């Protein structure tokens, strides 16, 4: 993206959320976008994720400029290439885990049996193969976020964007979620994490820091953390073990 500016109009007052931000995100990278609250992190992520358009500047994906695409074309691109994970999970209420994970496939035109197979597979990857019909209300925060990750990866996207994915989770579930994101990255998926937490950011390879809509730092992480090491330090080897130790309600936020 190049020289991206985003201006919000709020009751006549202009809010400059991003002021001329330029950055490249490379394929297979794991990047953290850091900064204090209100610095424009989410805005940046929404623009990268094609949920929002810049007021000025150019966004291109794989060399293709996306500025002129219609809302429906953007929707199709999001569906095919991008997976989202939000701080507040954003799962459909009163809807089972599997149905939630199937949602992108529904809009991608994948038919019944195939859809259900891929949704189960995605849920198994986040260790929730045994919670297919649990609704968000019946799952803990960490489990809900894992369902959201399953939904993000079920379409085999090229990039997963996570906005404060650990923000509503206790530290154990947070580490677990970071572990899954690191695993995804290891499998070649580009991962962008938005966070205000330096510790979370240290799980990625590169940190971009925003302040008042401007990039103030962009550097490679020297002492990268491995979530799996942390998990064993905390005495938990796999996500399944966490379940066994904490029960379903234990890691709720």
């Amino acid at each position, binding site marked *: 993206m190049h020289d991206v500016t985003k201006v919000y109009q709020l009751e006549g007052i202009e809010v400059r959320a991003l002021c001329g931000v330029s950055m490249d995100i490379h394929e297979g990278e794991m990047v953290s976008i850091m900064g204090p609250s209100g610095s424009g992190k989410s805005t940046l992520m929404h623009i990268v994720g094609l*949920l*929002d358009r810049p007021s000025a500047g150019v966004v291109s994906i794989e060399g293709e400029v996306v500025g002129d695409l219609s809302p429906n074309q953007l929707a199709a691109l999001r569906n095919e290439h991008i997976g989202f994970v939000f701080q507040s999970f954003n799962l459909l209420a009163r809807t089972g885990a599997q149905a939630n994970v199937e949602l992108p496939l529904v809009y991608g035109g994948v038919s019944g049996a195939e859809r259900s197979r891929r949704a189960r597979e995605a849920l198994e990857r986040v260790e929730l193969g045994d919670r297919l019909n649990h609704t968000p209300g019946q799952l803990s925060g960490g489990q809900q976020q894992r369902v959201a990750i399953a939904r993000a990866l079920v379409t085999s996207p090229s990039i997963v964007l996570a906005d404060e994915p650990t923000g509503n989770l206790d530290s154990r579930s947070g580490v677990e979620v970071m572990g899954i994101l690191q695993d995804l990255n290891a499998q070649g998926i580009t991962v962008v994490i938005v966070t205000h937490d330096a510790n979370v950011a240290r799980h990625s390879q590169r940190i971009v820091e925003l302040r008042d809509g401007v990039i103030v730092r962009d550097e490679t992480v020297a002492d990268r953390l491995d979530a799996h090491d942390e998990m064993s330090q905390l005495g938990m080897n796999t996500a399944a073990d966490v379940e066994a130790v904490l029960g379903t309600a234990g890691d709720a936020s």
Partner: protein
Amino acid sequence: MNFAESFRIAVRAVFANKVRSALTMLGVIIGVAAVILLVAIGTGVQGEITGTIEGLGSNLLFVFPGQINTGGGGGGGFGGPPSAGKPFSLADAKLLQARLNGASAVVPVASGAGVLRLGNKSGRSTLMGATDQGAQVFSATLGGGRHYNRSEVDASARVLAIGYTIKASLFPNSDPVGQYITVNGQRFKVIGWYEKQGGSLSGDQDNQAYLPITTLQTLTGNNDVRIIMIKAADATNIDLVRAQAKRILEPKFADNITVMSQDQTLGILSTVLDTLTYMLAGIAGISLLVGGIGIMNIMLVSVSERTREIGIRKAVGARTYDILSQFVIEAMMLSLTGGIIGILIGAGGAWAIQSVVPTTVTPWAVAIAFFFSAGVGVFFGVYPAWKASQLDPIVALRYE
């Protein structure tokens, strides 16, 4: 995304809020049921009255005192003589009888109210007075006994033939012929009874008693003749007979009489009855409209409640069309289900009241109600659905 998916999503949404969905549908149910029922009544009454008049035969002429606007529409009254106009007397009927060629019967008719009593049983009935030729112009068929004859008319004899309802209430288990009853306190001999004919707008024809017009005039003290009925010997001659009748009565009444054929009566009646049916349908249609507004209201609430859901769907790739169709289908499901239930209730109601009011549920009324309720769903569902589909995914996701 295909239609089946949108449909599935809509079904879930409708079932997720069962009470609200049911109440929303109730508006449409009431509207459609009202349309079906009222149109059934309009059609049924029309059919019955038309049938009754057609049953009279196409060679009948009705002569009223005064003028009736036979042009339909306008200000003309119907169903009886207009208020203005000098009433006929028996002499006028005699005059017509003597001078008309091509008329096989000329029958003066008068009516009144009477209390018929037998022992401790009594009831109010309409008394129809006519001459012995009345049998030729009235549609009732004798079930037993006989009509009154000419000498009884000449003698103002106290005899009468009773309709089926009267027979059933005064003589539930016995043959009335030859029995005596009192009419307004006077002793009458029952000489015949009529088969069941069924009701109509103008009252229960089976609750009528037929007696010589001379007797009726004595009984009520009123010598007016309400109507003179003329039966043409040949239906093709009817216009000739009409012209003659007008000419014969002209010296006394000038233009102040009306001669109507069965066709004209039917014409006026069907105009009036059509208008009545459309009015009923219109009133019912308004309640359907209100039901539609109810759907729109609930859909708007539903859209704003589900703003976040819409944002999630859009974020994972739902297109404008997907959201639009989801909500339109939801609205249509509410209105169509309501419509079908309404049709069933309306038709059931029409069937249930058949013994009181004639009803006919026509296929076109059902078809119109069905498509109209589908249309209501689309019409009132599109705006909320369009609003939903235009939501900006970011705004929707940030929505609390």
